[in-house]
C-alpha cells in the first residue's frame, strides 16, 4: 500500500508547479506527475543541439503575477527575468525600420519619422490603455464570478466587478466596450495612421488565436502589453534567464522547498473515480496512486475526455466540453546560428535586437496571412515574432553563436491535408519562415547550423496541447471568465468531486501568468477541500 497524498497534480507545467507549491506551503502532502522527462510543460528550456538551449515553446515572460513571485519566494529559487528594452519592426525595403524603446520619448522620436500625429497620440494612448489595464488586472486576479448564481457571495463578486467600471465615465466606458469587442486593427485605427506602427501593435491581439487583426474581439489582448509588471518597464516583457524553463524550474524548486514531491517520466492514463469522486490516479503502467484530491493541469479537452472519460460525464457536460474550441494557429521555428542575424545593418550596435523583432510590415500583411490560414493552409508569408535571447543571455549558445526563436503565425492545426500530415509539411513550413526572414537578413541561410520546426501537431503530440493550442483553448469571449472552460465548472472545479483544474484552460487563460495554478490552489484551500 503506497502513500496516500492530499493532492496529486497531473502535469508539471508552470501552473501545475505553482499549484503544488501553494498547496505544499499550506502543509499539504503533494505529488506532481509529469509525463515528459523535463518539467515545465510549454514553459521549458531544452538543449536540442549540443551547446544550444532553446525555449522550445513559450519564449517570453510578461504577465507573470508579481504577488506569486513574492508569496512563493520564487526569486530565491532562481526566478530571474531580463527585461526586454526594445521592440523592433524591420522593413523589407532597407529602411531603418521602427524601434520602440523603454524610453518613451525615444520611441516617440522614432514614430515621428513615420507620422508626427502618431507620435503625439502615442503617449495619450498608453495612458488610457494603462488605465484600462489596471481594471483588467482586477479581473484576472480573482476567480470569475458566476453569473448564473443568486448566491449573495457571487452577486457581491459581480457587483465588485461592476464597481471597477464605475469611475470610468460614459465615454471611457464606451471605449472599454470598444476595446473588449472590436478588432485590434479597427481599434488602432481610432488612434493611429502609420502602418509601420499599427502593424506590430495590432498583432499582439492575435497571438495564439485563430483570428486575424481585423477579427472583432481581438483588441482587448492589446491590454496585455500594458499589464506587464516587470518593474513598470516598457511593455514589461522579458526573458527568463536560461530560457523560459527557468520560470518552471523556480516554481519546481519552490514547490520542493515546501515539501512537494515531483516525479517526471510518469504517464497518467486516467483519474481514478469512485462514486463520482476522484480518489487518485491510474498510471499507464497500471499502478495506482491514491489521493484526497486530484488537480489536472492538462487542457479541458484532455481533462474531461481522457482523464475523466465520457462514461463518467453526463451527456450535457460532454457536449459542452466538445464545444470548447482549441484550434491551434501557430508554430515555432528555433534556429541555432553560427553568428548574429542582423536585422538592420543601418542601425548601430545590437541594442535594437535585444527585445523582440516583429515581421509584420503592415496590417494587411498579417490579415492576408490569416486569410490563407482560414482555408486550411499555413501562411506563405507569416507573421513572425523573433527573439535572439543569446544576445542578452550568452549561456544559451556556444561563444559567438546564437539561438533565434521564431514564433510563427499562422500555422493552422487543421490543415486541408489533415492535421496528421503536418510532419510531412514541417520542412516546407520551416522554409517559408526562413525565406521570409531572408528578406530582412539576406545571409540567414549561411548562418543556420540547425533548425528545429515545431508544428501545431508537434505541440499536441509532444506537449499534450490538444490541437496545438498554446493557451489550452481559444481566448474568445465565449470561452473566458465564467465560461472557461464551460459554464457551471469555471471555478477550477469539474463535475467529478475532488477533481480540480489549474491550467491555462481555466480562468484567466493562457500566457505565463501563473494565475490558473495560484487561484485554483487558493480555491482548494478556501473550500477546505483537503
Amino acid at each position, binding site marked *: 500500500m503506497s502513500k496516500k497524498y492530499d493532492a496529486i497534480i497531473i502535469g508539471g507545467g508552470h501552473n501545475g508547479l505553482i499549484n503544488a507549491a501553494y498547496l505544499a506551503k499550506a502543509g499539504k502532502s503533494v505529488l506532481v506527475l509529469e509525463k515528459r522527462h523535463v518539467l515545465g510543460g510549454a514553459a521549458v528550456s531544452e538543449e536540442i543541439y549540443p551547446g544550444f538551449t532553446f525555449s522550445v515553446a513559450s519564449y517570453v515572460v510578461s504577465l507573470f503575477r508579481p504577488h506569486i513571485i513574492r508569496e512563493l519566494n520564487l526569486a530565491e529559487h532562481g526566478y530571474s527575468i531580463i527585461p526586454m528594452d526594445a521592440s523592433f519592426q524591420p522593413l523589407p525595403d532597407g529602411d531603418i525600420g521602427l524601434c520602440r524603446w523603454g524610453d518613451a520619448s525615444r520611441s516617440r522620436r522614432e514614430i515621428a519619422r513615420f507620422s508626427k500625429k502618431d507620435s503625439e497620440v502615442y503617449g495619450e494612448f498608453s495612458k488610457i490603455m494603462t488605465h484600462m489595464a489596471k481594471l483588467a488586472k482586477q479581473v484576472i486576479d480573482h476567480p470569475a464570478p458566476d453569473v448564473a448564481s*443568486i448566491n449573495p457571495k457571487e452577486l457581491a463578486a459581480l457587483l465588485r466587478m461592476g464597481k471597477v467600471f464605475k469611475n470610468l465615465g460614459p*465615454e471611457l*466606458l464606451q471605449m472599454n466596450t470598444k476595446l473588449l469587442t472590436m478588432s485590434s486593427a479597427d481599434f488602432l485605427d481610432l488612434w493611429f495612421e502609420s502602418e509601420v506602427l499599427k502593424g506590430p501593435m495590432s498583432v499582439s491581439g492575435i497571438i495564439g488565436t485563430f483570428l486575424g487583426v*481585423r477579427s472583432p474581439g481581438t483588441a482587448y489582448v492589446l491590454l496585455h502589453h500594458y499589464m506587464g509588471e516587470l518593474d513598470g518597464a516598457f511593455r514589461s516583457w522579458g526573458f527568463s534567464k536560461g530560457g523560459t524553463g527557468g520560470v518552471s524550474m523556480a516554481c519546481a524548486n519552490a514547490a520542493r522547498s515546501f515539501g512537494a514531491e515531483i516525479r517526471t517520466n510518469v504517464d497518467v492514463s486516467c483519474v481514478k473515480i469512485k462514486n463520482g469522486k476522484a480518489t487518485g490516479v491510474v498510471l499507464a503502467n497500471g499502478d495506482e496512486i491514491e489521493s484526497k484530491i486530484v488537480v489536472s493541469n492538462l487542457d479541458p479537452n484532455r481533462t474531461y475526455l481522457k482523464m475523466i472519460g465520457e462514461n463518467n460525464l453526463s451527456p450535457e457536460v460532454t457536449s459542452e466540453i466538445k464545444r470548447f474550441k482549441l484550434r491551434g494557429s501557430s508554430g515555432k521555428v528555433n534556429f541555432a546560428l553560427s553568428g548574429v542575424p542582423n536585422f538592420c545593418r543601418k542601425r548601430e550596435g545590437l541594442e535594437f535586437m535585444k527585445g523582440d523583432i516583429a515581421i509584420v510590415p503592415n496590417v494587411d500583411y498579417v490579415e492576408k496571412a490569416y486569410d490563407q490560414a482560414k*482555408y486550411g493552409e499555413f501562411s506563405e508569408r507569416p507573421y513572425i515574432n523573433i527573439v535572439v535571447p543569446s544576445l542578452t543571455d550568452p549561456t544559451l549558445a556556444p561563444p559567438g553563436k546564437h539561438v533565434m526563436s521564431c514564433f510563427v503565425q499562422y500555422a493552422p492545426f487543421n490543415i486541408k491535408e489533415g492535421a496528421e500530415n503536418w510532419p510531412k509539411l514541417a520542412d516546407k513550413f520551416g522554409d517559408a519562415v526562413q525565406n521570409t526572414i531572408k528578406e530582412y537578413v539576406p545571409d540567414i541561410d549561411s548562418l543556420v547550423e540547425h533548425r528545429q520546426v515545431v508544428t501545431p501537431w508537434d505541440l499536441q503530440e509532444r506537449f499534450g496541447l490538444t490541437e496545438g493550442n498554446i493557451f489550452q483553448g481559444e481566448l474568445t469571449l*465565449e470561452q473566458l471568465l465564467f465560461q472557461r472552460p464551460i*459554464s457551471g465548472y469555471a471555478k477550477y472545479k469539474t463535475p467529478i468531486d475532488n477533481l480540480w483544474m489549474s491550467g491555462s484552460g481555466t480562468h484567466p487563460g493562457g500566457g505565463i501568468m501563473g494565475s490558473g495554478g495560484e487561484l485554483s490552489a487558493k480555491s482548494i484551500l478556501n473550500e477546505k477541500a483537503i
Partner: protein
Amino acid sequence: MSKYDVIVIGGGHNGLTTATILAKSGKKVLVVEKRKILGGIAAGEEFHPGYFTTGLLHDTSGVRADVIKSLQLEKHGLKLENKRSDVVLLSKDGRSVTIKADADATAGELRKISEQDAEAYKAYQEFSRKISKVINDLMDNPPPNVDVENLTMASLVVLAKKGMLLKGLGNKTMMELLKVAPMCVADFLNEKFKTDFVKAGIASPALYGSYAGPWSAYSTINLLLWECASRSCVKGGPQALISALQKAATQAGVEIRTGAEVEKIVLDEAGAARGVRLKGGEEISAMKVAASCTPKETFLNLFDTFELEYELDYWIEKIRSRGTTAKVNLAVNKKVELNGQAVEFARTGNSLDEMEKAFDPVKYKEVTNSPFLDIHIPTVSNPALAPEGHSVVSVLVHQIPYDFKGGWTVETKKKLGEDVLKTLEIYSSGLSQAVAGMEVLSPADLEDRYTLTHGHIYHGEHFVDQLITRPVPSCAHYTTPVSGLYLCGSGSHPGGGITCAPGSMAAAAILKSS
C-alpha cells in the same frame, strides 16, 4: 415666436414617424426632405421607364407593429401581415429550400434535404423564441441608462428589470445566450447544421450592414437580433409604408417640404438648436430640431466644428459606418424564375466559406467577383410594378466596399453589374438576355442619393459597441449635447432597417422634454 415647434430633417420612414407622432400630440411640425420624393431608403422609384422598385431595402419584417397601430396606418391603406415573408435559399447546384415563417413548416422543407438540418432549425427557432422576450424588450424600449456615475433610482429599476428578464430565461437558456452571443455565426451554425447552402442562407442577415464575414466574432448576436425582431411585414414593401405614413402625416397636420436641402442647423446665442438654414439661404426657425439623417451628417456637415461641445466631434468621427452594400435593379422582359420556381424573396451564399471569401477583399478595399445576393422580385406579388408579364428584380449586393481602391467609376460599376448578372445566371439561366434595363448603385451612389454617410444603409454599423449607446453615449437617448437637437434616425437605438422604432422613441423623448 417660431412658426414650428419641431423641424424634422429627412422624410424617410423614421423622420415621418417622428413627425406624425408629434403632430398627433398637437405639435406644429415641418418635415424638410432633400430629395424631390419622400421616403429615403424606403421610397419606391422608377429606375427604368415603366419599372418600379419598392424601396432600397427589401425586408420590412422588423417594422414595429405597435407603432403602426398607434399611428393608425391601417386606416391609411397599410396592410400588415402578422408573419414574415417566405425566403428561398438558393444553392448553385440547383437545390433550394424555403424558410417559412412557421418553424415546423420550414423543418418540413428542410427534411427533404437533411434530417439533421430540420432538427437543427427547430432547435434554433425554439431558442430564438425563448430569448425573443429579452431581445424585444431591448429593441422596443429606449436604451437603458448605463451611465454608472449618474444612476438614478428610476434607471436602476429599469436595469434591474432587464436583469430579471434575463434571469427569467432560466439558467440554461441564459448561459446559452451568453455563450453564443459573442460567437461568430459560422461557429454557431456549424455546431448544429449540416448543409452548406442552408447555413449560408440562414447566416446572411447577420452580415448585412455589419462589415463582417461569417467568421467575424459577434455576428451571432446580429443574427439573433434579426431573428427575434423579425415578426411582421408590410404588404407592398417599404413604399407601401411610406405612402401610408405620408397620408397619416398630412392628416395629422405635418407640413412637408421636398426638395429642401438643409445646409446648417441654426443655433441661438445660447447654443441651442433653433431651426435650420436651407440651401439657398432661407432660414426656418423652430423650437426644436430632430435629425433623421445619419449622426455623422448631422454633426459633421450641419454644424461648424467650433459649435460643437468639446470632443463630441471626436466621438462622432469614431462611429464606424463603412458601407458594404450595393444595389442592382433589373428590368426584365419576362417572368423570372430562380432555380426553377417563381419566388419573391431569395438569398444566395452557397457556403460560409464562400461568404467569407466574398468578405476578404473588402478588408483590402477590393471587390469580390462573386458577391452574395439578397434578391427581391416584387412583381411576383405586385405585377403593376412592371409592364405586363415583365419583372423587376431588385438585388442588394453584399460585401461591396464603399472605399473601393479603384474608385467607383462608370467602368467599375459596369463590372459590378456584370458580376451580379453572372451570379444570377447560375440560378436563372438566360436571364441576361431578358434584361431590358439595369440600374447599378454603388455604395458611393447610395451616399449621394440618400445622404448615407459612406453609403452605410443602417447609418452606422451594427456592432456590439455601436448598439445600446448608439450612436455615442452622449446622444444615446435621442437627446444630444446640443440643447433642442434630437436624433431620430437609424443611427439611434435600436438601429437601422425598416423598423420605425428610432423615430417613434425619439418622438417620445421629444414630447417628454417639452
